[in-house]
């Protein structure tokens, strides 16, 4: 078991390293941050002086090694724009993004699991069609648009929920819906198709033949088997929630990392972009690792193979 974990952690680190190289190169291809930081009439001398101060005049491989050696000690440099340590910026904001992404994931499961299971159990019924419709709606609409719509209806129109911010637990509801609705369609399909397979299986029929009540058959004995393909995708879905969070955060003025990184991108604030992407990669790798380890919890056949 430990060997397995070690191996996966090593793989993860390589992925993150690769991501760091890519983002390092790409940001520097996107333009010159110094020109954006200084006022328009700044003399050339000032520009080159600032460039020197930020180390941007060095060859790119040298810049990368400096970045890497600092990063390993936890120093991600200072934001060009904010003049505060990048790590602090991220540390303050990452939890909010993780919170939102998790809430969105939970919301999506709150829809996709019942939809998927019941659509399979009542295959072809009006519920099956209804669930499909709701799921497809989420897939068809871009998340920022859903967010704006939710604000109009629930904040302005009905005045049930707040329009922005993150002060109370109520505040996460609308952003979580806006972010989490998109993957519902794909998740529902996975659950439904897995459930259909499982419901037709011999062991479910066996359970029925010994008198297990239908509800228990569906939710206990069948669902756990059908959950495996869904769990497989959880890492991917969490990563896509992280990515989608960036946009939703702007709509709802959610104090997360996404907004920070997007703004940093426009401002060519390299240290923030680099660190932001790196942490996103880290989240993704960690999520996948957790998913892999959790297979063993769900499917005992996999446990002993480690």
């Amino acid at each position, binding site marked *: 078991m430990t060997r397995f974990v070690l191996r996966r952690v090593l793989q993860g680190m390589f992925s993150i390293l690769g991501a760091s190289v890519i983002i390092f190169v790409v940001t520097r291809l996107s333009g010159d941050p110094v020109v954006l930081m200084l006022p*328009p009439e*700044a*003399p050339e001398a000032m520009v080159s002086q600032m460039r020197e101060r930020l180390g941007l005049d060095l060859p790119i491989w040298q810049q990368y090694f400096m970045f890497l050696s600092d990063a390993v000690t936890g120093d991600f440099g200072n934001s060009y724009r904010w*003049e505060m340590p990048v790590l602090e910026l991220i540390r303050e904001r990452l939890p909010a993004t993780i919170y939102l992404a998790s809430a969105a994931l939970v919301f999506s499961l709150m829809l996709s699991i019942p939809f998927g299971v019941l659509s399979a159990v009542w295959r072809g019924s009006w519920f099956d069609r209804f669930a499909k419709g709701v799921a497809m709606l989420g897939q068809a609409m871009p998340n920022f648009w859903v967010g704006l719509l939710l604000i109009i209806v629930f904040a302005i129109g009905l005045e049930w929920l707040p329009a922005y911010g993150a002060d109370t637990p109520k505040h996460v509801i609308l952003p979580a819906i806006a972010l989490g609705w998109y993957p519902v369609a794909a998740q529902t399909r996975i659950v439904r198709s897995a459930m259909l397979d499982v419901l037709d299986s011999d062991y479910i029929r066996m359970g029925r033949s010994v008198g297990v009540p239908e509800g228990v058959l569906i939710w206990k004995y069948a669902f756990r088997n059908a959950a495996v393909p869904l769990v497989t995708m959880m890492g991917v879905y969490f990563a896509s929630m992280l990515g989608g969070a960036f946009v939703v955060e702007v709509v709802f003025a959610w104090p997360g990392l996404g907004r920070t990184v997007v703004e940093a991108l426009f401002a060519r604030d390299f240290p923030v972009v680099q660190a932001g992407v790196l942490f996103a990669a880290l989240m993704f790798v960690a999520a996948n690792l957790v998913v892999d380890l959790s297979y063993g919890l769900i499917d005992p056949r996999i446990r002993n193979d480690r």
Partner: protein
Amino acid sequence: MSRIRMGAGAIALTCALLGSVAGPVTAEQTGQLTVALAAESTTMDPAKYSAGVDQYFIGTMFEMLVKPMPDGTVQNWLAEDWSIDDSNPDKPIIDVHIRPGVTFHNGDPLTSEDFRFSYERQADPNVSRWSHLQANVEEFEIVDDLHFRLHFSKPDAAYIANYLQLWAMPKKYFEQVGEEGFGQHPVGTGPWKFNSRKVKEELRLEAYDGYWNKDHHPTVKDLVIKIIPEDLTRVAALKTGEVDWIDNVPPAMLEDVKSQPNVATAAMPSGNNLFLDMDTIPEGPLQNVKVRQAIAYGIDMDAIIETVLFGQGIRYAEVSKDGTGYDPDLKPYPYDPAKAMQLMAEAGYPQGFDIDCYNLITPREPNMKEMGEAMYAYLGTIGVRCKVINLEYGAWINLGRRDEKTDQLNGGLLSWMWGQSIPADPTIAWGGHLHSYEPGKGWGSYSHVNDPEFDKMIEDASGEMNQDKRVAKLKEIAKRKHELVLGGLTTYQPLVTMAWNDTKVDYTPWPYPGFWRNFQEIGLKTQN
């Protein structure tokens, strides 16, 4: 919403019981207002100010020697009076008397030492990105606690145009807490005192009860500034009562917001001046003045502003109405397509020509992308066939900026902007995009013009510290610039609209250097 109204009513009643709201600051202020801004300052340390947006926070807590007023004039502020001593015209001296009785938020009195300390910080290139603006000050002489003199190595009119540059920063406090401490808990002389901040979320301020200006000050105790970048969300927050005041109502939502009951709005011209820059450096049609004039006649700016911007823009000709060098006789070019076509033919392009037209898509001002597209579409009708190239902010800046190697515009058009501040003074802007490119001296860093006559005129005006003479010189430049359509065709100034809950908020718009979003006078309304 009703709960907030009730609360506000209770608080207002309390205020009324405690005494007149617009009275002396000595009475204890109460109550809280929440406002929402679309963008946020990156720093609260005036010496580290990098872009206009930083004024949003700095301007609430810090002050300068002079200050622009709501009526467009510049009045003495922390300076009781000041004058220019040009007994040696090549090395002028600015003589300043500080207003007595001004204190910082921590109680320390304001003295010349504090201004010298600020000067040193602002002149240090390792601290400030604008240190070059202090380059001409060769000595800061302290005469006594309330009297100091700035010795210049040569005439520098820009220094005056920039509100005498210096911010009042507390030397003793800074030395106690250090730069980082100061940046996290700033202390100034302004009407608002720092309370707390959550980066990217909110800034909490408290009215300073030792504030020196008894005539113009806030009338509410606590101010919470929230940051809501998304337009619709910000408007929604006002509608639901979650915030009491918002800035930047998007033009498309203006009708809707205005039609809300109990909402008051104020539209002010932003300090930003937009123009259509033309690359006259390489060989090409733009080098011909008739082509440039044709372009000026060929765009119906009024129509575009009305439809694309919902009327939220003001046309200007070179210098805006409140500005230094404003000439009421200089009118923006009227829309005259027939004349434009004629000019094109006279210039030798009866069939028109193809040209690259660069358009900014990042909405630094509302609907910039659509405005550019509309203008370029009009040009198409007079034969200037635009190949529209969209750029986002970073790429756009990089394209417009001159460097030693090339002028990347390749004889094309570029929608550009350069704020002239409030009130306007075009000196620095023209130094940047009208004067030819001289990298060593900092001239023309975004210039696509090469005209020696303009270079001379601009350098002359920037050294002229006598206000009347300056105005005359600037008018000269404006006139010539307008005729030749060089350094860009001036298009419009965007209007910024603020909106607030009229039954709850008592607000007077005040500018600070460059922008209107100053909370110099804001408070809770009392019940009559």
